[in-house]
């Protein structure tokens, strides 16, 4: 069912994205580097005002521990604010629909979900959140969590760049955060919000409207500040939509143009990160390696997704079409955004496999900022394993990889299966799965397994939706989301901090900027990550597919 036309769409979109990402990376270098920008005249006064407001010394740089601690404190602080708004939304203003407070566990889940850039939606956005909750509890955090991801990434890049660019430490988290907001996320999402309004996505605070349809029945039009949310939810690879149905809901994604713009939006910043890495470490070839490996894995995902001849079952969004739905689903998991434009349950299970792959790898190219961070983690492990075969102590960017680095990378690597598999087993063993009406078949298992995978990968797409609004799933996924977010950030900031201090060799042992290394990297990721989860994929989506074939015969 996939023809030349579709391949051209994919290649065309990729080429466009890569081109603009390359341009964006030049701009990002001025945002985070020492280079001056013409826009400084506008931004510097604004930023200085903000620094003054929060009492920040912008010249103070932080070592990795301090940087991480501030990331954690800031994220916790925003989660608490969000929690309070959601938990007390009934008492708070800007609530024309008079929605009641969220339960404590749902408020907790939502606050942890948004602050960790996950946006797992156990809430029905359009049917339970006030405008204040949507704008401050959700939308504001979507900006800050995306900005946190960017800040962490550039801090890590500075570490890998070595001491040349920075006298000491990885930079100042709050400066990076503020600049990410003022210079990147706010301007870009503003521009795209305007574009979305033009192409027909609503932006209003006037409350839901009751209309009489042509057939004479009454319908509530759930409109609100949708356009502004859509632009940041995609741009910041958050994925939490205004509506529970996300971009499958016509007000959030009315036509093919809005569909592709939203895809482009979620791809643009993660795609520019490898280029930014190359620029910051002054070796564009290394950035290219990350880009090739990410897009190579992304391409493998897409090929698998398009394998089944009978791709889609019933219930598809007719306006967007099967091709676009599958392309979107693979993309949203590849970039760990988690927005959806079609119901996952409607897909052939084979499509779910690459969705899993995207979330298990998290670097294809992954979420905003953190995607490249995960790729660096895989590079450290891969360089260590295969680098020995070159007959030298493995080095990345000239820095020798020590036992300490391997230990940290292994902790990051090990945390993922732990936080996915252990809660999945507990959910079944303690009967929480049965409590929400799910059975023990491959379909149910796939959905529960997907829930925790999505939470751990800070993706946010899910099968459960509001069904997941139970104390167990709210609390367990909340913990998983934070562990899945901050353990890897901790690990990679630590590695970056260590590598920054290390003596760099000027001789190249194993080249990581040629064409062979990305291939080695892809294979190594597939073996280490996907094969690890192979038994679980086998009893989940693969079994679903096989049983589907058997039933069809």
């Amino acid at each position, binding site marked *: 069912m996939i023809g030349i036309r579709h391949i051209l769409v994919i290649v065309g979109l990729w080429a466009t994205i890569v081109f603009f990402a390359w341009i964006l990376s030049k701009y990002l270098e001025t945002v985070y580097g020492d280079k001056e920008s013409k826009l400084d005249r506008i931004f510097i006064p604004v930023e200085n005002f903000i620094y003054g407001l929060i009492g920040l010394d912008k010249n103070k740089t932080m070592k990795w521990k301090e940087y991480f601690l501030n990331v954690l404190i800031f994220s916790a602080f925003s989660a608490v604010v969000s929690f309070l708004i959601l938990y007390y939304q009934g008492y708070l203003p800007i609530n024309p629909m008079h929605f009641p407070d969220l339960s404590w566990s749902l408020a907790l889940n939502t606050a942890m979900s948004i602050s960790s850039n996950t946006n797992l939606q156990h809430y029905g956005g359009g049917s339970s959140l006030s405008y204040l909750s949507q704008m401050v509890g959700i939308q504001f955090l979507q900006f800050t969590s995306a900005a946190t991801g960017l800040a962490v990434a550039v801090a890590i890049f500075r570490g890998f760049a070595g001491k040349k660019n920075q006298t000491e430490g990885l930079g100042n988290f709050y400066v990076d955060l503020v600049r990410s907001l003022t210079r990147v996320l706010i301007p870009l999402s503003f521009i795209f919000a305007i574009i979305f309004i033009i192409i027909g996505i609503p932006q209003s605070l006037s409350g839901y409207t009751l209309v009489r349809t042509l057939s004479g029945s009454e319908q509530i039009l759930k409109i609100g500040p949708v356009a502004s949310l859509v632009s940041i939810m995609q741009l910041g690879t958050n994925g939490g939509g205004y509506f529970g149905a996300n971009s499958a809901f016509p007000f959030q994604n009315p036509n093919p143009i809005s569909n592709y713009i939203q895809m482009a939006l979620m791809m643009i910043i993660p795609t520019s990160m490898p280029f930014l890495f190359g620029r910051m470490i002054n070796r564009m070839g290394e950035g290219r390696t990350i880009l090739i490996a990410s897009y190579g894995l992304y391409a493998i995902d897409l090929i698998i997704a398009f394998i089944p001849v009978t791709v889609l079952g019933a219930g598809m969004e007719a306006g967007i079409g099967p091709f676009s739905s599958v392309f979107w689903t693979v993309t949203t998991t590849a970039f760990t955004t988690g927005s959806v434009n079609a119901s996952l349950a409607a897909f052939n299970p084979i499509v779910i496999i690459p969705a899993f792959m995207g979330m298990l790898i998290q670097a294809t190219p992954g979420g905003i900022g953190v995607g490249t961070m995960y790729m660096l983690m895989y590079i450290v492990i891969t360089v260590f394993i295969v680098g020995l075969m070159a*007959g030298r102590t493995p080095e990345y960017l000239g820095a020798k990889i020590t036992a300490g680095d391997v230990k940290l990378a292994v902790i990051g690597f*090990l945390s993922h299966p732990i936080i996915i*598999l*252990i809660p999945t087993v507990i959910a079944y063993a303690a009967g929480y799965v049965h409590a929400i009406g799910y059975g*023990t078949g491959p379909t149910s298992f796939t959905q529960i397994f997907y829930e925790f995978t999505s939470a751990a990968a800070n993706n946010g797409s899910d099968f459960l939706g509001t069904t997941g609004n139970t104390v167990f799933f709210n609390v367990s996924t909340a913990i998983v989301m934070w562990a899945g977010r901050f353990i890897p950030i901790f690990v990679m900031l630590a590695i970056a901090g260590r590598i920054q201090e290390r003596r760099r060799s000027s001789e*190249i042992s194993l080249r990581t900027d040629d064409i062979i290394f990305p291939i080695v990297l892809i294979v190594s990721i597939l073996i280490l990550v996907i094969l690890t989860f192979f038994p679980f994929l086998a009893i989940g989506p693969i079994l679903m597919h096989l049983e589907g074939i058997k039933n069809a015969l």
Partner: protein
Amino acid sequence: MHSDIKSDMNGSNSGRSHDEKVSWKNISFDSVLRLNPVKLISNPVMFVVELSFFVVLIMALDPSAFPDLAHQQDRLFYGVVSIILLITVWFSTLSDSIAEARSRATAEGLKKLEAETPAKRVHVKEDGGREIEEISSSELKKGDMILMSKGDQIPIDAEVSEGIAMVDESLLTGESAGVRKAKGDTLIGGSKVVSDSIIAIVTTDPEDTYIKKLVRMVESSKRPKTPNEVALSVLLLGLTGVFTIILIALIGLSVTLSLGADLSVLIALYVCLLPTTIGALLPAIGISGMTRMSKNSIIAKSGKAIETAGDADTILLDKTGTITIGNRLASEFIPVGKHTERELAEAAFLSSWNDDTPEGRSILELAFQKGFLPKEFDALREGVFEEFSAVTRRSGILLVDSDDFTLPKGGREFYQRHRFRKKFDLATTMVDDTTILKGAPESIKERTGTQNDEFDEVVNRVTSEGDTPIAVSIHGDVLGIIRFRDVLKRGIKEKILGLKKMNIRPIMVTGDHPLTAKSIASEVGITEFISQAKPETKYQKVKEEQAENRIVAMIGDGTNDAPALAAADVGLAMASGTFPAKEAANMIDLESDPSKIIDVVILGKQLLMTRGAVTTFSVTNDVAKYFAIVPIMFASVPALQALNFLQLTPHIAVLSALIFNALVIPALIPLSIRGTKFRPQSTLRIFMKNLLLYGVGGVILPFVAIKMIAIILVYAGGAL
């Protein structure tokens, strides 16, 4: 050329008279003792495999202990699985035992060198006379004075204080080569005096000799792990953790989702996925690295030094001793003016007769080969010899009429001169006193007051060609120039080429004139050299290179070299060198062969490559094992059979995967002990070759092997 380097490395092994005598009986016994779980805990991968063995063993004995996960009718199968698991662990302990047995055998061989020998201690009496006391070598103490005569074994490390002797220092290689030892030289316990007698002062206590150090290096059971080994262990521990989580999750899901998995099958998958191959062989690789160092007679003060050697970017090579054999040799007589080659050669012959330096001997040899023998030969008996002096930069001889012929001083040249003597015994014509001078051209010019353009031109030509000119004069008349040429060490060109292929920069260091240095350097293919080096030059160069973030390896022997040896990342000192040099270096070569630094680098690289290759192989093997076991893992989910493209029935699948997993270990023991094949090549090519062999091969081989084992099992099962 590649074979040259290899044969050098191996040659020194095979040439040894006391090669390992490994007792297989002891090895088997030792490897079984090592199965003790308490001892295994230091190797986490193997430890969990052994735990798995116990679990499956219990399953075989009493399946009811594991409701839902074990079945009564499969007890025989569990029994077989548990035996394979135990054998897997045993293969691992076996590889340790073999590696240690080999290193023990090496240590035994070394100990024999320093076994109790009689020693002659010299006592100085109050009246200045000396008394010799026969004692055993173990009674010697630091500071004792000992006497050694021809045929004696040197009982302990010492420093010559009186006399000159030839000593055979080929401790371990078995190739006999005499070294001349004079006052101040170091003697290593275990070597043999082959001529003359010397008196020396003992420099160490019996428990601290170089041989003892070597033995300790090989034997030390608490060998600290090298940095790369530590990192690799961490990785293996991490992988073990990942697969343990997977095992736990699979057990949990199998029960809660009623997938009907058998615990023994889940454990089989777990063990197959664990990096058992590298886990089993990692210790053996490290031990055998040390053993191979000791076979090259190199004491490494730490395993880290060997690994660092593999990382070297730059090597500082001394010209003399490393690139060229110790001394320059006469290669041509160039007469000047109206003198003939014969006149020059004969004069040179006469002047060199009592010159015991290798240069002097080479003149005799060259003259003899060309048939230039002086008729004044007999006059040699009473020549007054002027020793070469660094101050006057010349040596000479004054010949007077005499009848006696004295034998030359001891040493290797004895026989040669003996032949001369027989041949010319009858020649008795002799003339007036003759003064022959030979030495540096400027010195001779100054002494004789010669002004000769042709002479200057010849001197310049010889110099510009990288050779050393020595002028010869008779009665104040300059006869000509003897050309002295450096003689390259055998195989050195190939070694240098190998270094360059490995992207290691060789830098030649020499005190010679720049032109001479350049000529030698270009002859062996070295582009960078430092000429007219002063004692501190090496240290400066080490620091310079390190400032550019390069890893520097170097060799040294003099006290002057000590700071550079200490600063260098890899410092190899010659055992014949001074004490401070040996203290500063992190490796000592007992055979004092400077070119061994290159072998050390190769050994370091081999160690790293072997570990990387086995790890990669271990990880890539998992692909096939997944596809063998996962499709048959859940008895209640027959639909997964669609993935079973190896077409294996459940028990056969588990057994073949486990058998393959176990057999890989002994199959790779020889590789771990000998190291991967190594040919000096660029890092990229080495990497690509290993990647193809162990990476791609590691994916494909197990598919084929598991299927073949399955076919054999089915066939054998049918036959039974």
